[in-house]
């Protein structure tokens, strides 16, 4: 994914209906963690996507701000797990013989070994 430098103004413009004080508070709560630069916050693409998600959670799904840390905490754990599973899959892909990979796939999907 392309990397570009995103300022807080770009974030505000990119998301419909988001208000600056809300975003400031989310940063203060460390729900969003942009890098700090002398010129102000610098956001990455994942920060933007996360701000958009939090905005959706608040406005579409009415997750209130007391509950937000729980939601984000669980979400972060799920993505940690999924990244690790990807790593595990890569490690297996790089080390296991084709026979073993085929047998693992068959076992995990409940099918017959090839």
């Amino acid at each position, binding site marked *: 994914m392309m990397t570009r430098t995103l300022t807080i103004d770009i974030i505000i413009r990119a998301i419909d209906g988001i208000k600056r004080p809300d975003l400031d508070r989310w940063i203060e709560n460390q729900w969003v*963690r942009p890098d700090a630069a002398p010129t102000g916050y610098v956001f990455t693409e994942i920060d933007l*996507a996360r701000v958009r998600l939090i905005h959706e959670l608040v406005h579409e799904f009415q997750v209130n701000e007391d509950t937000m840390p729980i939601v984000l905490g669980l979400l972060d754990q799920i993505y940690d797990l999924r990244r690790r599973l990807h790593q595990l899959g890569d490690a297996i892909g790089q080390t296991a013989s084709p026979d073993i990979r085929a047998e693992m796939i068959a076992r995990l999907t409940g099918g017959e070994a090839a």
Partner: protein
Amino acid sequence: MPNPYETLGVARDASADDIRRAYRKLAKIHHPDLNPGNAAAEAKFKDIAAAHALLSDPEQRGRFDRGEIDAEGHEAAPRRPGYREYAETATGQRYSAGSAGGETGGWDPEDLESIFGSMFTEANRPRNQGPARGADARYSLTTSFLDAVNGATTRLTLPDGSTLDVKIPPATDDGHILRLRGKGNPGRNGGPAGDALIAITVAPHQYFTRDGQDIRLDLPITLQEAVLGGPIEVPTPGGAVRMRVPPHSDNGTILRLRGRGVPGRGTTPAGDLYATLRVTIGTPDEALETFLRSWKPATAANPRQAMETNP
């Protein structure tokens, strides 16, 4: 795309609020960022979002209701890359759980083991990598009281039919575990064999009991031996020993044979044997009866006196 009213589960005349509520309720469940890896949820969410986009716009809704457009006629704008697309890649490490104020990353070996258990505990063993010591083998062996006190060599038959000569050292306690080096399971790739660990159970003896290094024994004696004293033979674990019963010994008198208990070992000295005299009358003959009938003790003794004052 299916009928947007059915997708959202609302009536044809549902209000804008009803539609919004229905959308929120379904979107909460099927949002792709909240359901990573669940393709069904993602497809469902697309339908829900498209249905909502169509029905939440009064003009579009009106055209759909009048049949001017079908459900396909209105495609929701293609979804921007969601949070999921970033979070699943290495980029997502930025928001790794607990990493606020400093990125943590990678695999914690403990976590690896807790998630993938058997796979990595097995893999971490030095299997096939070099010599490995064999596992210890555990056995139990019951030995006689005298063999445990005096020491003995016993042949243990193993489950596989082979035998193992076990040297029980003198003064072995009940519950002691003997370690026979190199008599356990064979090592791998030239590694040393494990040890055999043998738990010793000492069977009780008919007469002797063990009390640490000392041995206790109830020793029957005759009335004559008790009253008059005299030489008797006392059995000990090391063989019979002659000793004198002092005259006027009573039932319950304890005699000590120094050094005749459990043999000494290392810095532990040999114990003693304590013989408690048990006066045994046996079957009285006529002479004894005759004597006792005419016997008038010089001092009348009442052995139950203490019981009377203290019932």
